[in-house]
């Protein structure tokens, strides 16, 4: 998530200003972007341009990414159901088994997104989100809720589920 420099605090022992990570919400006007941080600078520029009527966060649940578009550009009220095309000889999507080339509408998180390709924009957004933020986590529930895509900010959804078992020594140390 975006990290900003706070020049109002004393410098650290390394001679740099302290940084602050903002997972939810917008940077205050006194914060600065780190050098060569284009995303941080974009967020700052956007926040300063629309400071009086900003949404809750730069993160947009419906697109599954930080969205910095002018506030007068609005998305449609509802999102399409994601439609995928099977690109392997056979693939499960939920309980159903499909063969290569079939197109399926599916509102939940696909278990094996690498076996699918997107047919519409909703599906592309879901596959992009899973590719960037889906590793090692269990994405539960339908991705399409009340007609809108819901891809939560990964910084706010808690610790990822570790794919590795805990070390046996952990249990011994906890005694």
């Amino acid at each position: 998530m975006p990290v900003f420099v706070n020049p109002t605090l004393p410098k650290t022992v390394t001679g740099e200003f302290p940084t602050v990570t903002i997972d939810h919400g917008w940077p205050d006007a006194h914060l600065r972007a780190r050098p060569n941080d284009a995303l941080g600078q974009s967020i700052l520029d956007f926040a300063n341009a629309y400071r009086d009527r900003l949404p809750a966060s730069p993160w947009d649940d419906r697109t599954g990414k930080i969205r910095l578009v002018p506030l007068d550009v609005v998305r449609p009220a509802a999102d399409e159901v994601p439609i995928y095309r099977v690109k392997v000889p056979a693939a499960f999507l939920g309980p159903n088994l499909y063969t290569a080339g079939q197109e399926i509408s599916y509102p939940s998180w696909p278990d094996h997104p690498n076996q699918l390709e997107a047919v519409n924009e909703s599906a592309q957004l879901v596959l992009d989100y899973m590719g960037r933020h889906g590793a090692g986590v269990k994405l539960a529930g339908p991705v399409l809720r009340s007609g809108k895509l819901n891809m939560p900010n990964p910084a706010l959804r808690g610790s990822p589920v570790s794919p590795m078992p805990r070390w046996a020594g952990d249990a011994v140390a906890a005694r």
Partner: protein
Amino acid sequence: MAARYELSERTYIKPDDHLEASLHEAGAVIDYSGVPGRNFVPLNDEARAAVAAIAPLNSSARNVLPRRGDPAL
């Protein structure tokens, strides 16, 4: 026209015109474009073609996979 089947037993499936998968009772008629299971009774030509397309796979699986009651089990 989509392949149409009658379910011969209770089945958890997502028909084409449903948003989510759900449990369907035996006797339910569904439109389904995926690979039919053994509990799918075809009702139209598209469904019969889908069942015929996987018939070789089913027969070879029967020859390879052990079944309940096999002496080796």
